[in-house]
């Protein structure tokens, strides 16, 4: 029976070279980063795959070499900002936080619960909270080069660490809300996130090879954007693909979806900053 299934799978692969993830390994400067993970029991997917596994060899290669990775320009800018004094405090991030590597592991638990706010905050929201309350400077716009440079830099400190969302207490409520949206069919085309990324992951949607829609690589350099962009920007595009009205970056709905996506990708490795088509 197992054999027969295997043969069928082989046939399917022969019929369509594109179906499913490929077998490539992500090695960045000699260090391998796993791009798949076993799903825990009760998970809607059998096996978790990074979106990297669904991209062409050319796109994959850009992420395998930090000198080729076009997102590293943003990281460089992030390093510059990290050491730059600003605001009424006259302090830089480094003055208070030390080396940015002190924030290793933070990206892997985003969005993270804030006791003060009584809700989860995304990396962007944590950064702006600290800029306003500690640095006493003007917050950054969601999709500004400043914010993208900083989220890329802080995210990079967690590269190779597994996505490990807190699933307790208040977080669970937000994840549940995100899950509800994930399975709601919306827009003129009546698609849910799950229509594309769960039921049809691995298949071609016209020219697009659908992945599981995992969030472990954000912020991501997208060749189509010719720029690095946030997860919320990517989601705006996905919602528009259903011809539905998108939510604003930083909205409660997108934070809830982000919280739920982290649970769908728990165990996958952080790849920030990734490269996609």
């Amino acid at each position, binding site marked *: 029976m197992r054999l027969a299934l295997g043969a069928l799978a082989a046939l399917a692969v022969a019929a369509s070279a594109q179906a499913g993830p490929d077998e490539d390994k992500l090695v960045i400067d000699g260090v391998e980063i796993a791009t798949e993970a076993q799903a825990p029991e009760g998970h809607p997917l059998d096996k978790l795959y990074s979106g990297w596994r669904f991209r062409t060899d050319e796109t994959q290669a850009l992420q395998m070499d930090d000198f080729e990775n076009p997102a590293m320009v943003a990281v460089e800018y992030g390093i510059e900002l990290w050491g730059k004094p600003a605001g009424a405090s006259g302090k830089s991030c480094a003055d208070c936080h030390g080396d940015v590597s002190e924030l290793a592991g933070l990206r892997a638990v985003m969005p993270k619960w804030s006791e003060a706010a009584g809700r989860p905050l995304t990396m962007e929201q944590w950064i702006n909270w600290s800029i306003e309350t500690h640095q006493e400077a003007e917050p950054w716009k969601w999709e500004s080069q400043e914010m993208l440079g900083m989220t890329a830099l802080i995210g990079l400190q967690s590269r190779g660490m597994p996505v490990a969302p807190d699933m307790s207490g208040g977080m669970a409520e937000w994840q549940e809300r995100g899950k509800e949206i994930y399975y709601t069919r*919306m827009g003129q*085309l*009546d*698609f849910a996130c799950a229509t594309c990324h769960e039921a049809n992951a691995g298949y071609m*949607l*016209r*020219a697009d090879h659908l992945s599981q829609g995992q969030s472990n690589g954000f912020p991501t350099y997208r060749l189509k954007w010719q720029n690095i962009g946030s997860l919320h920007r990517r989601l705006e595009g996905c919602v528009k693909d259903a*011809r539905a*009205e998108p939510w604003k970056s930083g909205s409660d709905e997108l934070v809830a979806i982000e919280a739920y996506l982290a649970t769908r990708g728990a165990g996958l490795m952080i790849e920030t900053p990734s490269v996609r088509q």
Partner: protein
Amino acid sequence: MRARLIAIAIIGAAGASAAAEVAPLAVSFTDGAVAESLTGVAGDPAEGRKAVFTRSMGNCLACHQNSEMEEQPFHGEIGPPLDGVADRWTVEELRGIIVNAKMMFEGTAMPAFYRDPSQAIRIGKQYEGKTILTAQQVEDVVAYLATLKE
């Protein structure tokens, strides 16, 4: 009342004659099939062919392969190939599948191309009050599909 207004809007958008067009909410299904033409005007297979591959119209190639359109790049693989659909389905069944495939295939990923827009959740502003295809475009697509025999 709402349905009537929408029907009028659609007729207006399509620039069709005032001929009685069946509004989305008034379409009657039997076992997933729709017996009656939505417009009473025979579909044009050439127009239908265009609607099938054009992204802003049916964009059926997003999900279906279709050998008859090999000149078009990128055929999706979410649904079965359209080759020979006319051997598998009657014209009435094909009309039902295009109007609202969920009446034939429960929970299918295929969009309902002539569904009352008020039934959509969070429909994009620019699509408010609009079906994906006009009634005549549905008839055109059905006429094209009817030519796909093997």
